[in-house]
């Protein structure tokens, strides 16, 4: 009950002032800009994470070096750390007064950076178990049939870890779309430039326009839901071979 009611209220409120007002707010340049930024950033982060997350998972499962278990533990840090502190840490290194002279505060790069931080664990943690379970003999069979190492990875390993990657991507995307804490400090929340939808919604509430806020929130929910469904569908397709055994 705690879960369902608030959502219902949200949808209701967004309709309060009528459909016309709904679209008015949503279509407004500021809202559209925020929405676009949020979605594009989330897609970039999901993709970056898909690549690096897989590499990290690979290294953790197949490679061995001193301090590997430490690295493995550190991956979970974004889960444990408050998002606002995450934003602060990134700001300290990549913002004004940066000791290495890199200042991306108030830029869109900063947003992507912050979102990469919070989404880091997702792909890694969904790919690790799949990679671990992978039948190494399939790779050996491929080699014995003449496949180069690249072909072994591309034709054998990758297709089999793809469901894991997709799950992680879905989680990372959902997280990135909704994130506020990590982004709010480092992005500066400049309207039309570095304002993400979550910040936009919060500003609307604080200005008293809760209907407008609700409208944008609903749109964001619907779009995210659609994308997640898409990823889920993709995952379903890719795991065709596991069914009706």
């Amino acid at each position: 009950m705690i879960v369902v009611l608030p959502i219902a209220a949200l949808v209701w409120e967004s309709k309060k002032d009528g459909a016309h007002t709904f679209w008015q707010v949503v279509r407004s340049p500021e809202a559209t800009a925020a929405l676009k930024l949020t979605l594009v950033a989330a897609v970039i982060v999901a993709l970056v994470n898909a690549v690096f997350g897989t590499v990290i998972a690979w290294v953790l499962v197949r490679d061995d070096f001193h301090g590997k278990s430490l690295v493995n533990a550190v991956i979970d840090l974004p889960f444990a750390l408050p998002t606002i502190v995450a934003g602060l840490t990134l700001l300290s290194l990549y913002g004004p007064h940066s000791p290495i002279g890199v200042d991306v505060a108030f830029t869109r790069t900063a947003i992507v950076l912050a979102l990469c931080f919070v989404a880091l664990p997702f792909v890694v943690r969904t790919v690790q178990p799949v990679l671990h379970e992978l039948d190494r003999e399939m790779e050996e069979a491929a080699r014995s049939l003449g496949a180069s190492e690249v072909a072994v990875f591309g034709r054998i390993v990758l297709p089999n870890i793809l469901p894991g990657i997709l799950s992680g991507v879905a989680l990372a995307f959902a997280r990135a779309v909704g994130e506020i804490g990590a982004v709010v400090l480092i992005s500066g929340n400049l309207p039309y430039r570095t304002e993400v939808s979550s910040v936009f919604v919060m500003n609307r509430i604080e200005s008293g326009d809760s209907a407008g806020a609700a409208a944008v929130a609903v749109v964001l929910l619907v779009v995210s839901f659609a994308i997640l469904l898409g990823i889920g569908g993709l995952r379903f397709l890719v795991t065709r071979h596991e069914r009706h055994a």
Partner: protein
Amino acid sequence: MSIEIRNVTKRFGEYAAVDGFSLEVASGSLTALLGPSGSGKSTLLRIVAGLETPDEGEVVLAGELATELAPQKRGVGFVFQHYAAFKHMTVRDNVAFGLKIRKRPKDEIAARVDELLKLVGLQAYGARYPAQLSGGQRQRMALARALAPEPKVLLLDEPFGALDARVRAELRDWLRRLHDEVHVTTVFVTHDQEEAMEVADRVAVLNEGRLEQVGTPVELYDTPTSEFVMRFVGDAHRLADRLVRPHDIALAREPSGRAVEVEVERITLLGADVRVDLVDGHGERLVARVPREELEELGLERGEILWAQPAAERVFVD
């Protein structure tokens, strides 16, 4: 393609899985590597395939040194005990894999796949996924897959080990007939001596990473060169100071020659033969196999005292 293994040693830490092993395999032959678990036979096979590299020694394929050669370049077909099927590909795609890697034209691939599926009896299953096949079917697919790129050597690592007894027997026959048709140099690994004897032209017996004896199945059975081989290939029991095969124990009511006094513990009828469990004066157990008629002639019963004598031929003295 002939295979020559020269003095190969492979260690895992302190433990030598293969220890100074040498063997020559003639082109076109069907050879079995037979031995108990841990005898190093699988490791040896994988070294020939290039899936492991030896610490010492050489592997020569068709007269050329291949020890450092990657598995991709050896032209070797490998069949795994647990099939190693490409789960995410259909049966057709599995079989076609080696050919696709070699970038053969599409119609050539399709024709070859059809040919092989027919050969292994899986024509109707081309569009299925491995998860939908039985163990025996998966292994046949794995064989077709290994044969598709026309390897010069076919290596099988306990290929029927994961299957149940009946399927195992069927596939054994089937492998023999396949070899008769296809004539690829084939080496397979097994711990089942019956399998080795039934299928192979020549059998190499391994123990603790070393070669004990190599020869035809008959040679190994009739003239074993060590106690290990005698016990491993067929049954053998101690009688006095000799090792005797159950069929070679003659039972009589009167002592003669080097006969030993034994007591009958149990008599079991096994079709045309009878198994007689005996125990000698020192408490050592042994088993004799006698034909039915002899049982009736002697009128044997439990608890009787008899005299057991090794028959003149086929006795191994340490």
